[in-house]
């Protein structure tokens, strides 16, 4: 495993001895000089990502915010192995990311559960395909995760029998099924109503704290980014660039009601809003 010297989290090591996440950090993802160009239907090329550099430490929760068309989904698709970059490299734990990896779990905008399978069959799907290993240990872990996600007793229900929030929680469990090192989430709660979304944020924080995974999450919501993230990456549209990285120094577990009017929160929210304008 190689350690990037300029890892933004390196400074945090040792400084905050009390925070459990920070002591374990070492760069898990390294994105270097990545360029992605999309051809449009009209024939002209669009520069979706312009020399993007990003390091994410192990166990870190990073939120990507930016207006539509800023390339955040493109960046996530590159990490998920659904697209390849035109220039630059990205690596996971020192290994180049050139395609889908067992060590990466993805949560889509829609829960994207297969309607013809039960919840259990859906969350076990990652162990069933792609030549994945299917160990007792992984299955036990999935069952434990279902419990954490509040889906106990719903294992044999079909997706259409579940609420939107429950479906998305099942999708998160599915993304964690192979016990990946990295969890990618593309606006996972965008389709939910505001109250459900807030509750889902708290649950995601709980699942994340219990699993200790590295998470990269895309969101349009500044509040969501501050509530969930250790670090917030603000991106600019066309060409997609990282304009600012902000550390969120708020204690965990964070509680929604305590965030209201919190000074750090207000200052961060104002800064991000100004960057996005």
């Amino acid at each position, binding site marked *: 495993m190689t350690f990037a010297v300029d890892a933004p989290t390196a400074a945090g090591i040792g400084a905050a001895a009390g925070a459990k996440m920070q002591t374990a950090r070492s760069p898990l993802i390294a994105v270097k000089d990545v360029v992605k160009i999309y051809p449009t239907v009209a024939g002209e090329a669009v520069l979706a990502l312009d020399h993007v550099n990003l390091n994410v430490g192990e166990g870190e929760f990073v939120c990507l915010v930016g207006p539509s068309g800023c390339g955040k989904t493109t960046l996530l698709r590159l990490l998920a192995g659904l697209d390849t970059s035109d220039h630059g490299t990205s690596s996971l734990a020192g290994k180049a990311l050139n395609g889908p990896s067992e060590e990466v779990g*993805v949560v889509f905008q829609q829960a994207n559960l297969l309607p013809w399978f039960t919840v259990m069959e859906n969350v076990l799907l990652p162990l069933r395909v*792609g030549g994945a290993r299917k160990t007792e240990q992984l299955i036990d872990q999935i069952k434990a995760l279902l419990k954490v996600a509040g889906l106990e007793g719903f294992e044999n229900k079909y997706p259409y029998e579940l609420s939107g929030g429950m479906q998305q929680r099942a999708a998160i469990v599915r993304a964690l099924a192979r016990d990946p090192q990295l969890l990618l989430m593309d606006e996972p709660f965008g389709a939910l109503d505001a109250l459900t979304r807030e509750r889902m944020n708290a649950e995601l924080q709980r699942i994340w704290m219990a699993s200790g995974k590295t998470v990269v999450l895309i969101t349009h919501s500044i509040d969501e980014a501050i509530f969930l993230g250790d670090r917030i990456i603000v991106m600019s549209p066309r060409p997609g660039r990282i304009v600012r990285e902000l550390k969120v120094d708020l204690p965990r577990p964070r509680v929604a009601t305590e965030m209201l009017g919190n000074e750090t929160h207000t200052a961060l929210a104002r800064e991000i809003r100004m960057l996005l304008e």
Partner: protein
Amino acid sequence: MTDIRTESNAMEMIAISSAAEKNRRRNVRFRNIGIGFAGFLTLILVWKLSVNLLNVPSYILPAPEQVVVALWSGIAVPVSSPLGWYLPLWSTMSNALAGFLIGALLGLFFGSLMAEFRAVETALMPYAFALQSLPKVAIAPLIVIWCGFGDGSKIAMAALLAFFPMMVNTFAGMRAAEVERIELMKVLSASRLETYRLVKLPSAAPYIFAGLDMGIVYALLGTIVAEFLGAQEGMGVAITKAQAVTDVAGVFAALVVLGITGILLHLIVRRVERSLIHWADRGKR
């Protein structure tokens, strides 16, 4: 105390309203059956009246009761009687079902192949369209030349007619599979076969069932057409025989038997569909 009372009141209200809903639905069902029955009676009445008032001879249009008599004369006989509906219907049905099975499987196979491989699509699509726009009944004489007057030509004709709706629907259904679901399989490094089996085929299931529904009726049609061109037994033969002696009531009776058979086959397909793809159209997410 008050809380508990309100609660039980609420439960009662729920029970009452759900009972009312059940009642309402049953009433609607009864009303629909009533409307259907009234419509049927009106039709019979108009038929009967016009035959009597206009003095239509029975070799043009038989009266309803003559058709009923002809129908009954084929029912009230031993199963093995050559005068009954049972033997010709069995012959037609077994050929139609065998042809349907072959045609449906081939349609599923080629539809899948075309949806999965662009090259196959490019190579086969023009022929598929050409054959599709050809009135397939016109091919029947050729089929009889190739497959003879026996069961072969009946099965082949049924298969040919069942093939197209199945192929087209399988193709369309697989192409309609949601991109997100296919990307999910890609993220999981699933093989092409796994993606086909676990995502594309189930995605296409509603389309495939629509194809089966059409296909089974077409297969029956194909068998009858082949029987018209020459056969020893079957419903087509029964119709030709009745026609030869201007037994128009007999022709009508045979058509009624075929109509009922078609409806029953359609209902069976629908029943299987509903139990197999109960998840369709229920919440996209």
